[in-house]
């Protein structure tokens, strides 16, 4: 029972199709292996992202922005309030009919 099977197996092996490999297949395989094995190069963008993700730095940056926004807002608010008050005073003492 085994002899015909062996023949059949041998026949199938002999007729197994061997597809043609694409050009430079071997070089490409080795290149990809080398790319994966090599350590990833870090760009300045990665370094900056890593810095931003550090809790101390992120907290300090948020606090700095909060303070800067409050300072700028206070100065701008004072300026606007003075301007509005000036317009009120001018409207009272120097109506547009005169100016």
């Amino acid at each position, binding site marked *: 029972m085994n002899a015909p099977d062996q023949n059949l197996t041998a026949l199938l092996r002999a007729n197994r199709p061997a597809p043609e490999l694409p050009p430079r297949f071997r070089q490409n395989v080795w290149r990809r292996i080398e790319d994966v094995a090599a350590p990833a190069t870090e760009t300045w*963008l990665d370094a900056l*992202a890593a810095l931003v993700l550090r809790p101390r730095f992120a907290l300090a940056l948020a606090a700095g922005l*909060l303070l800067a926004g409050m*300072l700028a*807002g206070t100065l701008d608010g004072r300026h*606007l309030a003075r301007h509005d*008050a000036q317009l009120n005073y001018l409207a009272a003492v*120097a109506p547009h009919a*005169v100016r």
Partner: protein
Amino acid sequence: MNRSLVILIGALALGAAIFAGSFFCARHTTMSCCEQPADDLNWLRLEFHLSDAEMAHIRELHEGYLPQCGELCQKIAAAKQELAALTNNSPEALTKQNEIAALRAQCQSNMLAHFIAVSQAMPPEVGQRYLTEMKKLTLGDTGQMEQSMSGDSAHEHQH
């Protein structure tokens, strides 16, 4: 998209939101704190840091001046309405224009006299600053216009 780029864009957006939020909150709080819309003299208090006694004196001057100013303004407004009803270039229109000009001159003269009186109620340096500022604010525009019309552009008016 690159992961680092996404992180940085997110951080930038968060930072902008923090800055804008604190900016607008602080501005709103400061404005509502400083503003006293009912008081015309609030600007003098904010800008010139006057004492209570000086403010009281200025308030007295201010309240004495307002009725005069209001009366002249009403006369000007009435004369302007009458002028609008008249035909252009008629002798009556010219008379009315002269009347309005005289009223405006009187009003302006009163206004300047008031500014001088107010400046004298302040400490000398502050009073001088106030007077300069008020002249610039009230007479500055017309002065600039007159200068521009009498200066380089005068030759263009040949009609």
